[in-house]
């Protein structure tokens, strides 16, 4: 594997997103939403402003679960199929690079853009939290930021897989949106439906482990169970066994969600 080629491809992808202001736009969206949610998150309870780190994170988790998968899928769905449609894929593949290098270069460039916009977008809230609660509070928030980045990278990985599977750009975009619907809107409902239908009598714990099949749920567990005060805010807390409430375990599952779709993409992207 030649890293020069991978870096060249990654740099181009990253610069493209800087140049067309994608990074700036997404960072601004995150900044505005995170500030609004942080400041007005307690309005229902008649409070405004920063309340606690736990409450801030719990409020932001819901935002991130909807927004980051969508942004990551939209960022990566045409990574390969876009090149195929414009006829430049054959040109790239005729160069002295391997298909794996092409995939990795594209992925790393897009991942860098997504990471930068996520960190920049949630950074302002981090500064506010630091001023209010100092280091101990910030530690949890930084964990939330890192897990948000990992969630984005997992869905970016799925998007790149879609971009390899689909033969047309429109089909890839359809697949990406379908994935978002499935993982963000439908998956938990199906699981909850299954749990209710079986009355929790048939493999109740198994349902908790099924949550690992959804990176959005892994993200939720990662943030909810790292904070005692937050657990009670979620109904899910009642069905998730303590064995899953380990950040390193959930972090590893999330890494799996990044690596496995990419590996599948490489397998599917053969000559």
């Amino acid at each position, binding site marked *: 594997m030649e890293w020069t*080629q991978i870096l*060249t491809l990654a740099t181009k992808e990253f610069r*493209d997103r800087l140049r067309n202001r994608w990074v700036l736009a997404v960072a601004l969206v995150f900044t505005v939403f995170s500030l609004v949610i942080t400041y007005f998150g307690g309005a229902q309870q008649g409070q405004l402003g920063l309340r606690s780190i736990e409450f801030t994170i719990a409020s932001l988790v819901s935002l991130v679960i909807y927004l980051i998968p969508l942004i990551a899928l939209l960022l990566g769905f045409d990574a390969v199929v876009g090149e195929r449609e414009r006829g430049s894929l*054959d*040109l790239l593949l005729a160069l*002295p*690079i391997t298909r794996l290098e092409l995939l990795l270069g594209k992925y790393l460039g897009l991942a860098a853009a997504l990471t930068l916009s996520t960190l920049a977008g949630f950074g302002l809230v981090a500064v506010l939290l630091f001023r209010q609660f100092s280091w101990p509070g910030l530690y949890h928030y930084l964990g939330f930021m890192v897990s948000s980045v990992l969630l984005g990278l997992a869905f970016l990985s799925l998007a790149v897989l879609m971009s390899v599977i689909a033969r047309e750009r429109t089909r890839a975009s359809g697949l990406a949106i379908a994935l978002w619907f499935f993982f963000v809107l439908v998956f938990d409902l199906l699981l909850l439906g299954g749990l209710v239908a079986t009355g929790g009598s048939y493999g109740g714990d198994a349902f908790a482990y099924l949550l690992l099949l959804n990176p959005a749920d892994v993200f939720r567990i990662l943030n909810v169970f790292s904070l005692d005060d937050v657990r009670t805010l979620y109904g899910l807390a009642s069905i998730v066994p303590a064995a899953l409430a380990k950040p390193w375990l959930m972090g590893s599952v999330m890494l799996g969600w990044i690596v496995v779709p990419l590996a599948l993409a490489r397998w599917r992207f053969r000559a």
Partner: protein
Amino acid sequence: MTSTIPVSKSAASPGLAIQASGVRKHYGGLHAVDGVDLSVQCGEIFGLIGHNGAGKSTLFKMMLGLIEPSAGEILVNGASVRGRDFRAARRHIGYLPENVVLYDNLSGLETLRFFAKLKGAPVEQCAPALKRVGLAQAAARPLREYSKGMRQRLGFAQALLGTPRVLFLDEPTNGLDPQAIRDFYATLRELCNDGVTIVITSHILAELQERVDRLAIMSEGKIQALGSVQELRDQMHMPLNIALRLAPDDIAPVRRLLEQLAGVNTTTTAEGVRLSCPRATKMVVLSMVSELGVRLLDLDIQEPSLEDVFFGFSD
């Protein structure tokens, strides 16, 4: 950057830029390429023509290593483009795909730098390559402002990066104006003189006719004919067309005389006689006309065009 070209363990013949032997590509029951044997000499301009679906694009892509053959072997510069040393082999290949759309947000120079880095070519080559295709003035402009012809020239400049020994050009003159087409082929001839081998496809057969050294006509996955344009005409036994401009009184006697010759067909036109005859009969026809003592006002001999040859073989 310099690199040596790895030589395949199988028999690589010196002086051959491309060797394809027993190459097949099957997609289920479809035989896209069905047993192709082909050798292209170093420094040759070689045309590959055929109807859509004839198999030339598949063969082209197999030569570039983009598609794996179902059977057979292809060596480019004596090395396999899909083997362990594919990087070194591909550094000496330039490729211009058909209808490629490069990146609108990059400038011409940035585009070439991107491809130079991927190809392992010195980035210092980029500005001279742009100059060579007449785009030096537009180097800093983004591609979204380029015309179709400029984009095509940029694609050609990209193919010239590095030290290509073999250039694969797929419909390279799409969108070029007549002057640019002339400049393009002049550049190709210069490259050939430097020993670069060029494989070119085009649907504009009149354009290739005078410019390729040899060509292959593909149909149904097979090479139906191979040789120079003249050799293909000879293989097809295609007749010559001769137009004689004569004084009105001479038309009838000339036509009567010529029709006595075997294989000669004549028609009367407003200005004289038009005839088609086997190439071997050409001098007989001319000497008979001169011996008749008629006043020949004009003479036009038309060779069968590459288009005639192509349809002769492919239909």
